[in-house]
């Protein structure tokens, strides 16, 4: 069975500080991977997706970047946090190819002060 893990569970960070959020998928080779952001009480917005190692497509940047250093790992980062980065970050995976069910991780809550 596939499992998806996100770290950290929650973060409180200062404006201007760097950020790195991680996502790991176990039990599935070559998954499509996605990052989503949800403002408090809001809807979800897709930020990035990746279909293979080293390849990341940006959907909405929000002054963030993403990388896929390994087949099972997806990293979301920025060098300087903004207040507007606060929210809930979700990682998801789907099978290779377009148009398939996406499965979500438990998420990371981020508060920027």
């Amino acid at each position: 069975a596939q499992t998806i893990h996100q770290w950290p569970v929650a973060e409180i960070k200062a404006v201007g500080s760097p950020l790195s959020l991680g996502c790991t998928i176990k039990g599935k080779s070559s998954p499509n991977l996605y990052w989503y952001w949800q403002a408090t009480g809001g809807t979800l917005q897709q930020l990035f997706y990746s279909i293979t190692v080293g390849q990341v497509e940006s959907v909405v940047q929000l002054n963030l970047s993403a990388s896929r250093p390994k087949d099972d790992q997806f990293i979301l980062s920025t060098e300087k946090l903004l207040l507007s980065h606060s929210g809930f970050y979700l990682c998801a995976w789907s099978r290779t190819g377009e148009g398939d069910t996406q499965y979500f991780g438990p998420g990371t809550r981020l508060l920027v002060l």
Partner: protein
Amino acid sequence: GDQVEQSPSALSLHEGTDSALRCNFTTTMRSVQWFRQNSRGSLISLFYLASGTKENGRLKSAFDSKERRYSTLHIRDAQLEDSGTYFCAAMQQGTGSKLSFGKGAKLTVSP
């Protein structure tokens, strides 16, 4: 503009009653997925549809196969544990893997 219009935005039900949520799409969609978000924020996938209908227990979802411009989620015999926020998300033809979400519907089931 928003490609996915979800309604209602909030809904209160008594246990045992039935209801439906709907998502309209401003353009033709390839597929739709329905999720429930629990209090911790986890998104649970309920249905994925490329066409037709699917049923799972007290939940049933349909995706308009002809025009591909709307989808519904029916909840039968609502239970307290059905409370949560329900999202639909749709994928447009030819957009790679971009999933566009509705704004969610907060469902509260009371005794």
